[in-house]
Every structure is written in C-alpha cells, then in structure tokens.
C-alpha cells in the first residue's frame, strides 16, 4: 500500500512529468460527470456519435489543449447496454476512432459512496493514472455526511479529491492533476512510485469507506414530509397537474408571443435590408429563402427555451422523479412507464430533443413505444398553424366570463386530440406490435433542493443547441429546396410565380386526394411544404394568397369544415423531416421512421376525413 510521503525527489519528478494528452471522464450515470465536463471544457465541446451506434461521443478541449472525453455512464466494467460497452472499450483503448487514454478522472457521488466501491476498484485495475473525484461534497457536508479523502487516497493508492462540480469547488485539484502536478499534497498524497504512476489498489473495497471514515448523509426531513403530499393519491396528481398547467401558462402568455414578435421583427429587418439590394434572384434567395428561414426557426426558440427551462427546473429540484411516479399509473394502462413522462413532456416543445431524452428509459420496448408516440404531442411548430386557423375560423366568443374563450378551448381540444392519439397508439403498440411485457419501472426519489441557476442554464443551453443543430439545419436546407421548387422555373432572371411553379404542379397532382377533406390546391401546396417543417405552411399560404389576407381567403375557400379537417390533419400527421431523421438515428433503422410516417399520415387522413364529414353534417 502506498503512503503519503512527499520527498523532494518525487516532487521534482512529478513537476517535470509530461502532462496527459487525452483524459477520460469515467463514472456512473447521474453523478455530475457531465456538469464537471461542462465546467472543464465550457463551450469547447464536440458532440458526435460513436461509429455505428447511437451512443453520444462527447469530447472537449481544455484551455491547456488537452482533450477530455466524457464517457457514457457505467456501473461496472461488465457492460450491460450499448453505451456501457462503448465506455468499457474506450477505457481499454479498443474503441475504433478513439485514441488511447492517458489518464482518468473517475467521478462518483459522495452522498452514495458505498455503491460505487465496486466500480472504483475495477477502474483502478485498468492501471491508468486516475484521480478519484468525490463529487457533491457540498451536499454530503450539508446533509451531515463525512469522508476523509486523504485516508481514502491512502487506501486506494490513487489521488482523491472532494469536489462540487455544480459549485466549482475543489477544481484546483483537478487542474493540478491534469497538469501533472501534485501540488495539493494534503489532498493528493504523492505516491512513492511517482505522482502519475498507475494506482495500486490491493484492499478489499468493502473496507474502503470504513477507512475513509465515511459517514452516509441523512435523508432530509423536508423531503420526507413533502413526499407525503407529492406522492399522495389525490394531492399528488393535483400538484403535478398544477405544475404542468403553470408551465403551459408561461409558454402561452409569455414565450409564444415573444417568439412571434422576434420572428416578425427579424422578417421586418430582412425586408428593410433587402431594399438596399438589387432586385435579383440572389436577393430573393438570400432574403426569402435563407433569412426568413432563420427568422422562423429563431421564432420557436423562446417557446422551446421556456419549456426546457421549466422541465430542467423540475428535474434539478428533484420533483421530476415524483412526477414520473405519479404518471406511472396512467402510463402503465397504455403499456408505458413513468420514465416516459419527461420525454413526452419535452415533446410539447420539440419532438427531436424529446426522442433523444428517451435514452434514459431502460426498457427497450418502452423506449421504442415512447419514440413512436412522441411526435403526437403538440410541438411548438404546430402552434403558428393552429393560431392562424383558429384566428380565422373560430369566433372570439367568451365561454366562462373572462376566464375561457372559445378560441382557447379549441386550442386545448387540439392538444387533447394529439394526446389521445398518442395514448391510443401506445395501447395499440402494447397489444399488437411490440413484444414483451411492460413491467420495468424503478426510479430514485432524490432529495429536494433549490435548483441551481448554472446547472439549469447549462442544461437549457444544451437542449436548445440540439434543437438549433438538429432541427435548425434540416429546416434551413429543406426550406431552401422548397423555396426553389416554389419559385422555379425562373423567368428572365426573375423568380417565377408560386402558382406556376414546380411545386404547384405537384400540388395539382395531390389535389384529388385532398378534396374528400374539403381542402383545395392552395392548401395542398402548403401541406407539401409542411411535410418539410410544419410551420412553413403559414408562410406558404401567405405567399400563395399574395397580398390578400390569408385568414379571409381561407374562410372563403375551404370553410369551417375544411379548416377543422385541416387542424385535425395537422394535429396527427408526421410532418417533420428532422423528427424522422432523429427516429432513424435513435432506432438505427429505417423501418420505424417509415412505419411511423405511414401510420401517422394514414391516421391523420382518416381522422381529418371524419371531421370534415361530421362538421358538414352538423353545419348543414
């Protein structure tokens, strides 16, 4: 066993030791590994996928130029899932495309130390220079727990430090280790073999925490008291619904109007800037094709930021786990489990990050089912379409005094249609398509705590980046293609009229299919563009009707029945290329996205047809 002696000779040697080039960040899931990674690398991150699998490869650069790889969370070196397999391969230097690691930062949660002793022993056996980071030191202390890192370091034979990745305490120990220095000898014992030597753990891991004088933190009294209410059979669901209702209120009253204003302002800026450019095809491409595309994407950002903000707040405070427990009962009836709650709630902002969030669902079958139903949730891209059609067709009549208007009720009904379709589909998948039984659900109920601003902001930025990157780029590129199709052929160097474009010709072909739904060719053309990205239906309609008020024109041409049919179609159809792409990536096959597309389109068509017929019958 090593001792913590500090001789001048070893000090010199460690100081001149070359620093590591590639450092792996290892640890179990949910111990603050990613928080530490964000803190170390800031915005200098690269996220890609490991070749052939849907496991995220996160790497980042330190200020010193060293590379840090954030490995997927592992519980042991005997891998159970895809991402754990990758982590173990990277750890052993056997993952193609990833270089050998020079050193490891092993992160564990200090409040649950005894659980990680097995993993710590296994990782130390890899014989790489390792710094053990006992994270959440602040919480350990706050909850009356204790660990002596020096004693633990002696036992393990590897430097050990207490840190709080969320607060940024103890980061100097990390910096010293990464620079190959062993400055803080009181925390990092310099080993006789030299500072950066491989660790030499030879003790039984069960004894380790005893040697470190580890004292487990106590569960907070507030948490237990509050859980009596949060998990109460009646009060629990009420509380959960209140939280969600509050989130939607903020979204509708503040975030959505802000987004619309932002998008309008950006379009106005584009228009006024275009006045300074010569009227050529190029100007049309830049202003109408690119700038307006960016404006419409950025217009969603406030809604999405708001939704993710609320979700992250609920997550970081510890409430989300209770919501999952509350939801589990309802989810169980349609063959899902409580873990699907968070992805499905995120899908109200955007299905793409939601589908990526399904990775937390352990049961493969439940995960697939969640992926397949997530696009039914009313995402923020459907809102502009709903808003346009509702404003045009539904009278602004008050229902319950000032509390509720007919327009708001229609909007809620549309949300409900999506939700019911999702539940129906889940039930269908459960009984017919997917094999196996839905039984797996287990979730930890962490202590409640005040959400930390930094954690929340970083998580929101992270999810929004996913939206901008995955969704933004797809929408932008396809927007351009649609723009070309709807303005070509060009005439004498000027853009053509949408009515005589290639797109209009295709619109003419599909018109017969739309007539049973009470829709015309103009709507057909805009639906074609909507298959790229839903929200483009509004701009296409505006372009096709030219200077005429879109609402008034629609009212004259398709009538109430057609409008309701169109709304139902929008609520159910899979019209988002970005979602299809992400489903293909997450399921690793074309089978599911194609099946999903076919099923949703068929369902939308049938439901839309029925709506049209019923409204006609009632209205006649």
């Amino acid at each position: 066993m090593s001792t913590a002696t500090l001789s001048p000779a070893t000090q010199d040697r460690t100081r001149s030791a070359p620093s590591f080039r590639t450092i792996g960040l290892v640890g179990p899931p949910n111990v603050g590994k990613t928080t530490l990674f964000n803190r170390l690398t800031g915005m200098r991150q690269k996220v890609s996928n490991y070749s052939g699998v849907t496991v995220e490869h996160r790497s980042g650069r330190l200020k010193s130029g060293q590379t840090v790889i954030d490995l997927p969370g592992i519980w042991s070196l005997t891998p159970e899932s895809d991402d754990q397999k990758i982590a173990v391969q990277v750890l052993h230097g056997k993952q193609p495309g990833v270089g050998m690691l020079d050193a490891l930062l092993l992160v564990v949660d200090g409040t649950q130390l005894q659980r990680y002793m097995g993993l710590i022993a296994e990782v130390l056996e890899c014989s790489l220079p390792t710094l053990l980071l006992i994270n959440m030191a602040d919480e350990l202390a706050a909850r009356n727990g204790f660990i002596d890192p020096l004693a633990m370091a002696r036992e393990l034979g590897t430097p050990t430090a207490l840190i709080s990745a969320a607060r940024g305490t103890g980061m100097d120990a990390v910096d010293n280790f990464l620079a190959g220095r062993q400055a803080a000898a009181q925390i990092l014992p310099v080993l006789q073999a030299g500072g950066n030597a491989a660790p030499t753990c030879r003790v039984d891991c069960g004894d380790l925490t005893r040697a470190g004088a580890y004292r487990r933190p106590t569960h907070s009294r507030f948490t237990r008291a509050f859980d009596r209410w949060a998990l109460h059979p009646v009060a629990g669901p009420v509380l959960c619904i209140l939280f969600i209702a509050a989130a939607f209120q903020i979204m509708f009253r503040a975030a959505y109007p802000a987004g619309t204003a932002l998008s309008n302002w950006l379009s106005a800026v584009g228009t006024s800037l275009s006045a300074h450019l010569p009227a050529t095809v190029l100007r049309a491409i830049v202003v109408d094709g690119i700038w307006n595309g960016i404006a419409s994407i950025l217009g969603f950002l406030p809604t999405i930021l708001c939704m993710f903000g609320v979700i992250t707040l609920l997550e970081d405070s510890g409430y989300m786990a209770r919501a999952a427990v509350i939801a589990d009962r309802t989810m169980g009836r349609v063959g899902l489990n409580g873990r699907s709650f968070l992805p499905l709630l995120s899908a109200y902002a955007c299905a793409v990050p939601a589908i990526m969030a399904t990775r937390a669902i352990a049961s493969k079958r439940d995960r697939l089912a969640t992926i397949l139903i997530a696009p039914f949730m009313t995402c923020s891209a459907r809102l502009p379409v709903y808003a346009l059609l509702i404003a045009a067709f539904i009278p602004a009549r008050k229902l319950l005094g000032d509390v509720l208007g007919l327009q708001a009720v229609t909007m809620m009904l549309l949300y409900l249609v999506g939700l019911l379709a999702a539940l129906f589909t889940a039930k269908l998948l459960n009984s017919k398509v997917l094999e196996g039984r839905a039984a797996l659900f287990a979730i930890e109920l962490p202590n409640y705590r005040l959400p930390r601003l930094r954690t929340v902001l970083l998580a929101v930025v992270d999810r929004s980046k996913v939206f901008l990157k995955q969704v933004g780029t797809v929408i932008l590129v396809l927007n351009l293609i649609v723009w070309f199709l709807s303005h070509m052929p060009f005439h004498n160097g000027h853009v053509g009229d949408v009515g005589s474009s290639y797109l209009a010709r295709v619109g003419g072909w599909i018109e017969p299919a739309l007539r049973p739904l009470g829709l015309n060719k103009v709507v057909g053309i805009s639906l074609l563009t909507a298959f790229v990205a839903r929200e483009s239906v509004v701009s296409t309609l505006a372009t096709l009707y030219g200077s005429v008020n879109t609402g008034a024109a629609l009212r004259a041409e398709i009538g109430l029945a057609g409008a309701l049919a169109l709304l139902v179609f929008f609520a159910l159809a899979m019209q988002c290329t970005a979602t299809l792409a992400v489903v293909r990536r997450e399921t690793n096959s074309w089978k599911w996205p194609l099946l999903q597309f076919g099923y949703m389109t068929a369902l939308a068509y049938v439901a839309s047809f029925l709506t049209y017929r019923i409204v006609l019958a009632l209205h006649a």
Partner: protein
Amino acid sequence: MHLAELESGKRGVVTGVTQGEAFCQLCSLGLNAGAEVELVRFLSSRTLLIVRVDGADVALRRETAATVKIRIETHG
C-alpha cells in the same frame, strides 16, 4: 421471498437480483446483494412501492420489485 412481499415498515437484506433488463437499473439504484432495504409504503393500491435503500428512497413497480430477492433481517 422477494421485495414486493415485504410488509410496510419492515426491513430485509437483498440476497440477489434476477438477471434481465431491470438488473442494471436496480444495481444503479443501490439494490444489489447485501444492501439493507426498508419498505416505506405502497402507492396506487400496492402496484407501486417505495423502499429505502442506503438512506435514499426508490420507487418501483411491483413486477420490478419481484426480481429482487431478499431475506428478512432477524433483529429487524
């Protein structure tokens, strides 16, 4: 016996978890051999249960809990 057969307020020691899809997740929640568990209470007419393991509360479905084998603590 298994975890879901425990009475409310009673303690037991985990003797093993059945291999399968739930295995990994249960380990990550601290439900591995040797861990001491206490059944805090049942929810939604006994389909969900809350157990205390390592000082932390874990909620799990009855079917999932059935894969956790336990023995009753003698002094418990």
